[in-house]
């Protein structure tokens, strides 16, 4: 089956600044696909190109088989796009914002009431329908923005960092809505800098400085890590990290909260490491092997420290 979103060898520069280089990925129908990466990874450029706001320097990009350079109007009427910044009219009410976008997309008048009802069910915004958008809390604003992009029943939903700066509770609510939409068959492409959100996607592409480091199911990507990670816990260990990095055989030391994550190649045991640390610091520390997190893999991929398979 033809993918809903297809990107082949996409590159884009702004002046000397290369935003995206040679990006290729597909998003299948009904898939929830995540573009994961920090600011400057090229997520926004990719998304804006897909929604026809900027044109590619090279490469083939299509949405439901429509070429982004040729079928601008068609793509705009079947996709829902939520830009990174909250971009609704703060001086219009929740209801007025919804009506405005419904009219822009020529939603049939008869269906308006029902669609609004359905969106209110998702967003729980009904009690606030007469409140000005500018007076909503951060999480509610995001839900309103999402509702406005859904008013014309798009078959593809493209969201640019919808949860940046939003608190964890609102974030988890927002992702529940996305899961609901996915069940209804909407294809969703979402970008996020939060690694924990990546685990909620069917597949992800990890992006860094304009390139894709890895694409696949989240568990497949965490499986890319062949080195072993050990977590040691203790007071102010971070300040010891430079000394711990001297341990022979160690690949890297990362601080994580009040603990340190040590990366070793396969072949070391917890006991080995505990005794090495004791030699070094004169302290008995709690040590356990942990499954690598996506963030560990991300850092490993960037620094070229994921190790080799057997």
């Amino acid at each position: 089956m033809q993918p809903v979103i297809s990107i082949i060898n996409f590159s884009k520069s702004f002046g000397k600044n290369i935003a995206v280089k040679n990006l290729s990925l597909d998003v299948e129908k009904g898939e929830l696909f995540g573009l994961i990466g920090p600011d400057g990874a090229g997520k926004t450029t990719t998304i804006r190109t897909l929604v026809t706001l900027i044109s590619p320097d090279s490469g083939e990009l299509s949405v439901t088989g429509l070429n982004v350079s040729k079928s601008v109007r068609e793509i705009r009427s079947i996709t829902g796009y939520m830009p990174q910044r909250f971009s609704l009219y703060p001086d219009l009410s929740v209801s007025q914002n919804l009506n405005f976008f419904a009219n822009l997309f020529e939603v049939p008048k008869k269906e308006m009431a029902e669609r609004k009802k359905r969106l209110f069910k998702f967003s729980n915004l009904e009690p606030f329908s007469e409140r000005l958008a500018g007076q909503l809390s951060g999480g509610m604003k995001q839900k309103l923005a999402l509702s406005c992009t859904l008013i014309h029943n798009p078959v593809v939903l493209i969201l640019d960092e919808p949860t940046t700066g939003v608190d964890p509770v609102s974030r988890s609510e927002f992702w529940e809505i996305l899961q609901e939409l996915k069940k209804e068959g909407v294809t969703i492409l979402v970008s996020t800098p939060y690694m924990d959100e990546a685990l909620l996607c069917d597949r992800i592409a990890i992006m860094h400085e304009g390139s894709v480091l890895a694409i696949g199911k989240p568990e497949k990507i965490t499986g890319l890590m062949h080195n072993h990670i050990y977590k040691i816990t203790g007071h102010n260990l971070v300040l010891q990290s430079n000394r711990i990095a001297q341990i022979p055989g160690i690949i890297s030391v990362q601080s994580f909260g009040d603990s340190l994550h040590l990366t070793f190649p396969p072949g070391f045991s917890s006991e080995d490491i505990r005794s090495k640390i004791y030699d070094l610091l004169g302290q008995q520390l709690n040590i356990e092997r942990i499954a690598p997190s996506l963030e560990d893999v991300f850092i490993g991929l960037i620094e070229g420290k994921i190790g080799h398979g057997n």
Partner: protein
Amino acid sequence: METDNAVSVSKLSRHFGKFIAVDEISFEVNKGEIFGFLGANGAGKTTAIKMLCGLLKPTSGEATVAGFSINSETAKIKKNIGYMSQKFSLYDDLTVKENIEFYGGIYGLSREKISGKTDQLISELNLDKMKNTLTRSLPLGWKQRLALSTSLLHDPSIIFLDEPTGGVDPISRRNFWRIIYEIASSGKTVFVTTHYMDEAEYCNRVSIMHKGKIIELGTPTDLKQKYNKTTMQDIFIHIVGQN
């Protein structure tokens, strides 16, 4: 008044008309502590921080920051605190060097001190090659460290960080926290807000604010035991989601 607390807050409130943004909060932050100030959007964190920095008068209650009252000694407070926000208050159209010099000037450092500090910071941050480039063209992670450094120019005893790591890549974030630990171990107090719950784990103690009140306060380890959860993220969603 000499105390062991860097920040001491007692029944602090702030109303905006009928809206109660901060509702009689009380807590203490120890010297040299990394204190996480968590809460949902609109919970009242920003209002509370503004009051502690002397930018906003409380409706009622009292707090001391670095030993000075936020009601009567705001000028002294401003001399003793550093502040850095997500929107890094750097001037995009000034060079790295000019930004450092500007902030040195604002805090009234002498000319020799500014030039000494500037050189020191630039070499600490490995920005020698970049010192004459416009701040606009620095990578985000560098900007963040530069912003942090400028907020430390006047050697404050407490530093307030308002969502300092938004949008920064994981490596820069981890490096950033290593610097935070170094700052704290040198005796400075770090007061930080964040939406990244994994960062909450870095804090010595965290408070969770909801609808103007502080509804939980403790070390991450204690909280995890109390709620029988493994991550701060789960705890936050559990507590705030329930209320």
